[in-house]
């Protein structure tokens, strides 16, 4: 190595006070000057700034240095910047190495300045030790497929899909429910303007469905994802609908035919009403098609798909009610149906994940009693909306069965009196499951606002209602949000600062609410007809599973993790996969839409050029050393390694387009037959040895 002409430049960044505040820059610079092969040592207030980069470029251009070590902050954000500077000045950019003397040094040891300085020296020495062994590498290019898959057809998915489709990209929208629309379709009105949710959402649903560049794949789930940015191979499982969608017109005749015995809680109404085994998700569904829930179906006529119908005495086939009711034959049970549905293969260049959220069930909150009149806020939303189980008529939830009974009678033309109780007092409880160490420590972000919204809608419609709201704090950080809050107070809604600790059932289905008011400094209690729990927004149950399939990260709280909170909020650690909406964390509609559009634009700018530069920091097998044991094959998280024939022996080989350079194989190989370029064994060992020897670079 020493015969080569190596001239290392060490550039130490003050990062304003961030580094210089704890690390003695002069001392470190003096130390660096004496390291082997170091030709130049310089320091500057902000190395990443334009003049800072210019210092490096100047030295390269003048031929003073041919390896660059920058001691500054995190390579995650800044390595690309310095690499580009090297490249601009005519140096192979992989002759660059970074020492992080901020995040892991000055910040961590802010109060131990001497030790921080010592550690900075060691980190720089380690980087120099590695820099001496750096090799020039060449970037690769991969072709990009210009199709995009959007997972999730809620408001975020719809916007992402529309933006991309309008820009000319082909979009596959995969939705697990029969219809797109997501959680927003369940809402009555939206804050802070009180627009009708359906009025602003349904036109968009139609637009995306009819867009020539969008292919809707609903009632489907992602089964597997292979490949990498630009060339993802996705398998999507289209679930069995048991209804021929080609023929189904969404007329709904089958729904009414489905017998009462086959009724199960209606997911769309959050369990407040029942739906049949054959159902259309909701009246404004897109596509408006029926599906059969095979778990709920009671096989009425004793017949399942592909089975011969039973016959009457005179030989006529006995058909299932839905089959009989269908005017187009879409429900015919003559043909067998594969319960596994159909596997669809897609090739896409980028993926946007916008799978939304679910709200916590109230079941786990035992202290709020098991009364049916204690409901979640999303149930409240269904209760007040015109498309809900009571068509927007406000009654206590325990009386909904009475209402449905009454409605049936009226529909049959009978005269009947509705005997459902109307609530006089409604209590709202915030932070149920949010900000709670037992469930979710995070704030669900939208609860304060939607509670205020519901209270406002109720109070405006039924001024005689008494509404009590218990908040730990009222959080309204958004444009026009606090004004909205003040509007609520002006309406005479009673707001308390304090959490409700328990709800007890009274014998007449009313509820005794035990709360606390911080302003009075006293416990308070009241009798309420309905208690609304603002249960937390939480990740969908299968989100972890989906993340694993996609190879993206999930944070401790269970939401998808972005690459960088501030700088890359819609990117993931896997190139080419973007996230938007509540799958990334609780947020309201404006934020979801903004994120969706950001994700769409990120995907578009990635795919538009048609090809992409890929770092050469990937692994390579030396077949001479490889013993073919196959450990690496098992361990590779990207499925990038396979066994191939080499000189009559089985050896492993790494597919460079799939390899992400994670280094697992190189670390695991007992023969060390695998090299991870940019992080070779020699380079890493040199770093470790240098640190082990407290900053002394050892000649090997």
């Amino acid at each position, binding site marked *: 190595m020493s015969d080569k002409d190596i001239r290392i430049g060490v550039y130490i960044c003050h990062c304003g006070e961030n580094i210089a505040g704890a690390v003695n820059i002069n001392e470190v610079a003096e130390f660096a000057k004496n390291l082997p092969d170091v030709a130049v040592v310089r320091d500057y207030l902000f190395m990443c700034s334009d003049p800072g980069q210019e210092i490096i470029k100047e030295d390269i251009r003048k031929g003073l240095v041919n390896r660059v070590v920058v001691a500054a902050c995190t390579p995650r954000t800044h390595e690309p910047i310095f690499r580009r500077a090297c490249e601009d000045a005519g140096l192979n950019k992989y002759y660059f190495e970074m020492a992080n003397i901020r995040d892991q040094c000055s910040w961590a040891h802010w109060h131990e300045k001497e030790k921080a300085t010592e550690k900075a020296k060691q980190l720089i020495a380690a980087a120099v030790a590695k820099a001496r062994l750096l090799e020039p590498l060449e970037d690769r290019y991969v072709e990009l497929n210009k199709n995009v898959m959007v997972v999730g057809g809620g408001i975020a998915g719809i916007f992402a899909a529309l933006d991309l489709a309008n820009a000319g990209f082909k979009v596959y929208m995969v939705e697990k429910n029969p219809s797109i629309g997501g959680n927003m379709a369940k809402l009555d009105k939206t804050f802070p303007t009180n627009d009708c949710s359906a009025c602003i959402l349904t036109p968009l649903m139609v637009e995306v469905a009819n867009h020539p560049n969008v292919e809707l794949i609903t009632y489907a789930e992602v089964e597997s994802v292979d490949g990498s940015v630009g060339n993802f191979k996705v398998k999507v499982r289209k679930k069995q609908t048991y209804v021929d969608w080609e023929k189904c017109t969404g007329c709904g005749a089958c729904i009414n035919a489905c017998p009462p015995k086959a009724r199960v809680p209606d997911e769309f109404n959050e369990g407040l009403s029942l739906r049949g085994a054959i159902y259309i998700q909701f009246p404004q569904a897109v596509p408006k098609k029926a599906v059969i829930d095979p778990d709920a179906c009671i096989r009425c006529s004793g017949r399942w798909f592909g089975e011969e119908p039973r016959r009457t005495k005179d030989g006529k086939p006995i058909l299932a009610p839905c089959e009989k009711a269908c005017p187009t034959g879409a429900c015919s049970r003559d043909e067998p149906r594969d319960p596994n549905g159909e596997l669809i293969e897609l090739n896409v260049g980028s993926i946007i994940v916008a799978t939304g959220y679910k709200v916590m069930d109230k079941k786990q909150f035992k*202290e709020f009693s098991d009364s049916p009149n204690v409901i979640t806020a999303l149930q409240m939303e269904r209760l007040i909306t015109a498309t809900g189980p009571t068509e927007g008529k406000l009654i206590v939830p325990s009386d909904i069965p009475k209402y449905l009974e009454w409605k049936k009678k009226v529909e049959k033309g009978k005269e009947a009196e509705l005997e459902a109780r109307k609530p006089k007092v409604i209590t709202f409880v915030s*932070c149920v499951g949010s*900000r*709670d*160490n*037992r*469930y979710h420590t995070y704030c669900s972000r939208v609860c304060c606002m939607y509670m205020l919204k519901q209270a406002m809608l109720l109070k405006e419609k039924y001024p005689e209602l008494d509404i009590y709201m218990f908040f*730990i704090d009222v959080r309204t950080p958004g444009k026009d949000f606090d004004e909205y809050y003040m509007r609520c107070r002006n309406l005479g809604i009673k707001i308390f*600062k*304090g*959490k*409700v*600790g*328990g709800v007890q059932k009274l014998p007449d289905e009313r509820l005794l609410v*035990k*709360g*606390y*008011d*911080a302003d009075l*400094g*006293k*416990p*308070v209690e009241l009798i309420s007809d309905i208690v609304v729990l603002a249960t937390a927004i939480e990740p969908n149950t299968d989100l972890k599973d989906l993340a694993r399939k996609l190879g993206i990260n999930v944070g401790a709280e269970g939401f998808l993790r972005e690459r960088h909170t501030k700088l890359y909020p819609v990117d993931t650690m896997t190139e080419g996969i973007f996230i938007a909406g509540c799958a990334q964390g609780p947020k309201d509609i404006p934020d979801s839409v903004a994120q969706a559009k950001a994700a769409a634009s990120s995907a578009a700018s990635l795919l538009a050029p048609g090809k992409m530069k890929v770092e050469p920091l990937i692994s390579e097998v030396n077949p001479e050393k490889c013993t073919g044991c196959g450990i690496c094959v098992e361990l590779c998280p990207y499925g990038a390694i396979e066994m191939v024939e080499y000189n009559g022996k089985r050896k492993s080989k790494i597919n460079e387009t799939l390899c992400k350079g994670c280094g697992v194989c190189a670390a695991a190989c007992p023969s060390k037959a695998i090299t991870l370029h940019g992080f070779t064994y020699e380079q890493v060992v040199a770093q470790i040895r240098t640190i082990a020897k407290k900053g002394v670079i050892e000649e090997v």
Partner: protein
Amino acid sequence: MEVMEGVPPVINLTEVARTEKEEFEKKVSELIIEFGAENLLACMQCGACASICPLARVGFEWYNKKLIKAILIGMKEELLDDSTPWACVACNRCTEICPRQVSPFEVMFAMRRLMVEELAISTLAIEGDRSLYEHGHAVYMTGREARKKVGLPEKPPTTDSDEKALQELRTILKNTKLAELGLIPME
């Protein structure tokens, strides 16, 4: 014990902070944590504990939520003068529902322990401990008529009738803070 009801009309935070820094060796919150309320600092003052606390319900001054707040602020003298912690029934509703797993019950009892340490307790409260040492029972009665009436032997098979067991218990008690504080004879 003198029961001090009420709080001063204005709480002078500057003065509280100064007293805590200058007059005490340790912050009161640190002491409370040491005395067993490990999650004290997780409290966000939501008030759920107070909403169902029997003490708050019947009008004691320093019930769970307020006690925690006062500890977090650094108030000490006011708290040492108050009897609320000694009224806590240890019902643990608060522990069950606290969203931050602070266990306000544990804070109440840590406060008791702090008061014991500072000997800010009445003889009444010490009585139970003395009785425990003397007889092995916190509640103890010499009258045995009731037992005889229901057909039981005069003495139950406890430390009451077992001198060796009582000595064992005393050995244990002598190795606790009770003895350190001089509330029972030292070993």
